């Protein structure tokens, strides 16, 4: 099963504002891009043909791995507002 198919099994209530924002100017020059491999949702991508890094916030599991591992302070990271985000039914 692909990771996006796994995410589709979870219940999410997206926040209106994205709760995670990469700082584009920092990410542009980042070589390692550790966020791409640590994210358990596979939510981080590089826009094809550019050096722009993107994150698909609406499938975020709120683990905090991306912000913990980014060595460059390249992420504005908050928890979604109260009542928003992922809702585990079993946990």
């Amino acid at each position: 099963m692909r990771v996006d198919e796994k995410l589709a099994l979870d219940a999410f209530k997206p926040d209106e504002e994205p709760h995670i924002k990469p700082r584009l100017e920092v990410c542009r020059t980042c070589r390692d891009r550790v966020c791409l491999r640590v994210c358990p949702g596979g939510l981080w991508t590089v826009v094809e043909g550019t050096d722009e890094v993107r994150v698909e916030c609406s499938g975020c599991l709120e683990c905090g791995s991306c912000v913990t591992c980014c060595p460059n302070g390249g992420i504005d990271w908050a928890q979604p507002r109260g009542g928003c985000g992922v809702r585990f039914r079993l946990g």
Partner: protein
Amino acid sequence: MADGEHFDVVVVGGGLAGLSCAWEAAKAGRAVAVFERGEEPGAKNVSGGRLYLGPLRGLLPDEWNDAPLERPVARETLTLVSGGGAVSFDLRSDKLRDPAAASHTVLRAKLDRWLGEKAAEAGAMVVPGARVDGLLRTNGTVTGVRLGDETIEAALVVLADGAVSRVALDDQAPPPPSPAHVALGVKELVTLDPGRLEDRFGLEPGQGAARLALGDFTRGVPGGGFLYTNRDSVSVGVVLRLDGLAAAGPQGPESHALLDAFRAVPEVARLLAGGETTEYSAHLVPERSVDQLPPRSAPGLLVAGDAAGLVINHGFTVRGMDLALASGVLAGRAAAGDPAAAPAAYEAALAKSFVLRDLRAARRSQAFLARDRLYGHYPRVVTELFEELFRFGPDGKGRVARPAWKALRKGVLNWRGLRDLWAARKL
């Protein structure tokens, strides 16, 4: 809620630590509010997981007999995986069933919801869907919390907001934890009907199994895999050190691919065949030694559970839930007394309890578990040894002990191997 509302105790986070604290303080007659950012308690929470109730004897109220536990663990298996082979050490023992020492598998959404109801029945106000954004301070003492523009005052605040605490003393978000101090858990819940589950795991009706695995499926990243049986599902996942994942470089594995790699180990695949994945989750686990823990109190403030880094990774099992419950109860008891004396009372109670005792005793676990030979080298040595031992090829067998000696000499009885053994003796 009107601005300027006042409580005796405000708890940030409705997980095990926060809710057990609120229950205890409410039973003592305090006016308690719990703010939980999830839609209900447990909505954001993940464990492996199994809960050890043994250490909590005497701390938890009798109502715990009705807690929604999944299965008592009656079988423990440790598996080393390498190159398609797997060697398992398997324990079944009546001692595992001793009610005083038994562990139970749990599902957090169910358990935390139950605990939230208990805290509410005792009189605590449990407010879901409410994210705390900061602490209020007056002259260096914490005096309440802030939710957006609303302020709520409290004689005492208990911070129980988990492994990725975002609530700061000032208005700056606190820095994220260092990748060396946390591991990432990635987990799937796979449904299996109880009969099939018991057959597959070799269990008597109602009993449960816990399986831990180390080996090449993490592709050199320090960590391992786990399987826990629930009533009608299996929790399957991997726990990976974040510094290890980060150090693997741009060509290194993706965290979610390592869960797939664990599920693809033939041993694991067989256990889960035909089961259907119903939920996918991830969460950080604090992994610090007792000397690296963040503060547990400040004037007007107590910190409990993961927020205080109270987790022990013994290598073959992770314990955070019993420590979260114990620290929550002790925080609740301290909060029942004079708020000014609560920080000192809480610290003293923790120091005397199993929480800090066990954390101190496990002081060297973290450094030991960072040895990457545990995850590739030793699983390979042991698997190859057993493969040789049980192989009878066209040339016959020769002396049975020879391959064993060869493997041990090559793999373990050398300078690095002996050093690892020497370090293990202090665990």
